[in-house]
């Protein structure tokens, strides 16, 4: 080959090389920004945008900028499938974050597995990581863990016989099933199992039945929305004296303000993010959750939610894994994700392994009690 030709080739290759150097890391996201699950997808998308911007302002990752490809799958599993196909084949993303709901996540799992793209899901159900799938990880805690946390607390108070009351929604039913499954392992007998419908306005009939069930020492309400607030008010109306537990589904200021005085003494498991200010300074999560809360609330002028926190953890786990892998090679990033140890996020301390692609334990939940209209940590 003549030197001239070589030079020409080199000249041709130069822009490509330079281009390769500056090429951004492509993060693919599919979230329910609109539709029935918008309360999940909206804070998730905002969080991803905010932190991609912050990471880029701080020089990016591995000397490269991050580029976010985000689509709105609107809570629809079929749409999620379509967008994930596009993210993998057309946008050629290095990693997937998303799937606000379990349905959307499970629709994306076969595609991510087939293409070999690391995928961090933001949805709750246990099925996402059980059985373990090679390329799939998740950040949120599961409803099974919430049940376990409640049962541990019940046993500590000497409760062996409890009643369950749950709503008709997907969250409620899934949690009810998990609680029924794990209760025997914690030595708690479920003596009554009542349900109420979506939009029900009065639950005193169900609660009167629970009150009349002999031996019930505590009641757990697995629910979401206004149902648990009505249950709490009816509970006091009937003068039931045994302790009432709520789920992490109502771990928000809204529940306390809706139920008012009736919420006094109610206990529930919640993520550390919701009690950021109340956490003791020695708490390992204190720094992360207060920083995220401050960043999010000052930017978007709305209250922080655990869902946005899941997206924060998803992005940060990915970034850490890329830094440790020293590249964005999909296989290496996957291995690095699986080797995550002691990552402190908004959802808890994450220790992944080849058997556990979520990596959270019960310490991810804090047991809270409502006192004088505010949360207090139960020691």
């Amino acid at each position: 080959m003549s030197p001239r030709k070589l030079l020409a080739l080199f000249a041709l290759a130069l822009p490509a090389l330079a281009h390769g150097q500056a090429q951004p890391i492509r993060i693919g996201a599919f979230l329910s920004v609109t539709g029935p699950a918008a309360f999940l997808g909206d804070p998730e998308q905002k969080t991803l945008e905010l932190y991609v911007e912050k990471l880029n302002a701080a020089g990016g990752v591995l000397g490269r900028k991050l580029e976010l490809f985000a689509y709105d799958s609107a809570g629809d599993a079929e749409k999620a499938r379509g967008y994930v196909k596009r993210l993998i084949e057309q946008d050629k993303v290095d990693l997937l974050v998303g799937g606000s709901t379990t349905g959307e996540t499970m629709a994306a799992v076969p595609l991510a597995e087939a293409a070999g793209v690391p995928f961090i899901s933001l949805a709750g159900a246990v099925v996402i990581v059980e059985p373990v799938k090679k390329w799939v990880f998740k950040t949120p805690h599961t409803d099974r863990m919430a049940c376990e946390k409640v049962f541990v607390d019940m046993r500590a108070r000497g409760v062996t016989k409890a009643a369950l009351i749950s709503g008709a929604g997907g969250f409620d039913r899934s949690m009810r099933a998990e609680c029924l499954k794990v209760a025997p392992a914690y030595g708690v007998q479920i003596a009554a199992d009542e349900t109420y419908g979506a939009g029900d306005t009065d639950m005193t009939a169900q609660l009167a039945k629970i009150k009349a069930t002999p031996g019930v020492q505590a009641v757990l309400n697995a629910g979401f929305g206004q149902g648990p607030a009505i249950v709490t008010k009816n509970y006091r109306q009937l003068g039931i004296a045994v302790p009432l537990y709520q789920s992490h589904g109502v771990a928000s200021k809204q529940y306390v303000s809706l139920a008012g005085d009736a919420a006094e003494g109610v206990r529930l498991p919640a993520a550390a993010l919701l009690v950021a200010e109340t956490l003791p300074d020695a708490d390992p999560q204190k720094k992360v959750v207060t920083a995220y809360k401050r960043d999010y609330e000052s930017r978007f002028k709305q209250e922080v939610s655990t869902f946005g926190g899941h997206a924060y953890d998803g992005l940060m786990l990915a970034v850490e894994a890329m830094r440790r892998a020293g590249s964005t090679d999909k296989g290496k990033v996957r291995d690095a994700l699986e080797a995550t140890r002691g990552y402190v996020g908004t959802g808890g301390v994450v220790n992944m392994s080849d058997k556990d692609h979520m990596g959270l334990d019960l310490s991810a939940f804090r047991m809270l009690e409502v006192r004088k209209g505010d949360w207090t940590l139960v020691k």
Partner: protein
Amino acid sequence: MIEQYLLSGITTGAIYALVALGFALIYNASHVINFAQGEFVMIGGMASAAFFEAGLPLPAAILLSIAGATLVGVLLDKLAVEPARDAPVVTLIIITIGASILLRGLATLVWDKKIHRVPAFSGEAPIALGTATLLPQVLWVLGVSAAAVALLTWFFRRTLTGKAILAVSHNRLAARLMGISVRRVLAVSFGLSAALGALAGVLVSPIAFTSWDVGVMLGLKGFAAAILGGLGSSAGAVAGGLALGLIEALGAGYLSSAYKDVFAFLIIVAALVFLPNGLLGRGATERV
């Protein structure tokens, strides 16, 4: 325990009854089943919560929200129903379904997607009746329902506008020939039933809270209650509502809470088969 089941049934039943009254009113005037009735309930609750949170005293917040909902009802008639007044009834019903979706969407924009509460009118200390308890707010719901039935009965029997509405429902053409403005009658009945729905929303919010989507289930249950009682009958709407509430509460108490809605709807199906005109509805008479 039976006492508590009965009181629980009366609590939910009174709420269903108020919603059912609104269905009966519009059906009387136009033979249209207004599926946006639940949204009037939502507007009443959400608007009164918003006005109250903005610092207005509760009575003012209630009156303003009812006035606002009445306006929405009249606008719904003027903008959506009246332009299609010559269309078959089924088309009008579909229009009201569309309107309900629109109103829900607007509510999320005007207010938000959060759950709100309106304080109880006379405290939250439960009233003990034997071994069971009742919230004072339920007495408000029952009292206002009874007053609404009495007022509606008087309105339809004694006032010219009320009689005009009845005339239009019996024979629209004949009524028009007698000089009754069908347009005005329709506007009045939509406004009135919106006001009734909003009143229900205001009364119910202290018991069951309110949010942008609360109208869906309340509307459905209210519709079922109206059918059970006999469409178009005010007293029937109240009887149907209370019956539905009692069936649900007793079903949840003695059979299974998971299937209480199933019992309720089964009984409605049975009622439609064996009592096609409902508990208190008059049979349709064909004039030859």
